[in-house]
């Protein structure tokens, strides 16, 4: 496969990641920021897969697998502990913050 195809794809993905940076800095609520981390996770997986093809290192597919598995861990922690319920089960205090 032509080198430039994969390289163009990589550059494109990197640009797409920059969009995530904009959202994380701007996003009004905490969920928006966490969503950007999720975006980085998914795009990161695609990026790693493309890199595995481009650099001819099949081990990177393992890295992509690990990233897929563990991105969910951070998101779940956010949803349950940071934004979740306090001891009495009522809603958490923070809604929108700066």
């Amino acid at each position, binding site marked *: 496969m032509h*080198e*430039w195809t994969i*390289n*163009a794809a*990589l*550059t494109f993905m*990197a*640009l797409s*990641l*920059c969009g*995530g*940076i904009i959202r*994380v*800095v701007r996003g009004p609520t*905490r969920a928006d*920021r*966490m969503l*950007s*981390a999720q975006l*980085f*996770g998914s795009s*990161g997986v695609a*990026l*790693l897969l493309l*890199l595995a093809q*481009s*650099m001819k*290192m099949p*081990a*990177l597919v*393992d*890295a992509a*697998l*690990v*990233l897929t*598995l*563990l*991105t*969910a*861990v*951070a998101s*779940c*922690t*956010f949803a*349950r*502990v*940071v*934004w*979740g*319920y*306090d*001891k009495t*089960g009522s809603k958490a*205090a*923070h809604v929108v*913050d*700066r």
Partner: protein
Amino acid sequence: MIELPSVFDGLLSLSLVLLAWFALHSKDLFLGIVLFVMFGILVAVAWLRLHAPDIALTEVALGAGLTGALFLGTLGRTEVVRRDRGQGLPGGRHLLTTVLVSGLGIVLCVITARLAAGGGGMGDLVRVRLEESGVENPVTAVILNFRGYDTLFEIGVLFLALLGAHALHQAAGASTESLRLPRDSMLVIFVHIMTPVLILTAAYLVWVGDHRPGGAFQAGAILGGAGVIILLAGVPVSLRVDHFRLRLVGVLGFAVFLVTGTCLMVNGRFLEYPVAHVKWLLLVVELACALSIGFILSSLFAACASLLHPSGERGGRRD
């Protein structure tokens, strides 16, 4: 025409610096943590571009996943929102800090340039003696065989850190009451699906660690992730260090490593592996370390997020 890989590398470096800057200067702790997680993912990509897949695997597992979870769990329990308006340090110290950090940066650049140009370091030495180590992955050979002392003490230090976290948690007493998470049925299903996958992936990484990037630390981080989502689902599992069986799991890695090293003193020196059996010995040690690290990370998360059950609750085994 500009080479496309270097455009990608340039974007990557720029994003790394940008993310680090934002993470350090953000006025909100949560924003800083999220930026740190994103930074971790990009750093893993950078490691891959530098042809270091083992470190990239570890960075992905620990930096992007578990450290993020640890920070978020702690934040959720302490909820300190920094509201300083950027007063910063008093005047003189700003200058001193800038000078010191710039100096460090320049030294690092010089060292890196020299490494890139002269090919220094011990890579060739390791490659020459790789068959003696019994594994084909040079990183695993260095970690477990050539520099086994370091790893032995690292695992010991991890367990000590866990004890410290638990001691602090208990010392804080009533102010850190356990957070009782309600059982979320969707998350329980997710745990049912993911835990076997995580355990299998961890086992795969340990097995594959001797000829491909992998190894005990990555596998341990994945097992830690499994422990974290089990805790988050509200499954009543206790990860306190008081329980004897759990303490055994935590110490297992260090103990196995130490015992192996000592038993080898019969024929040689401490931790000097006999070339015939080194592969299996290393596998046993790696397995024990992975289990230990997994338990330690899960329990650390439980302590940070105050998810330890109060005493008197029924304890279960983390499985």
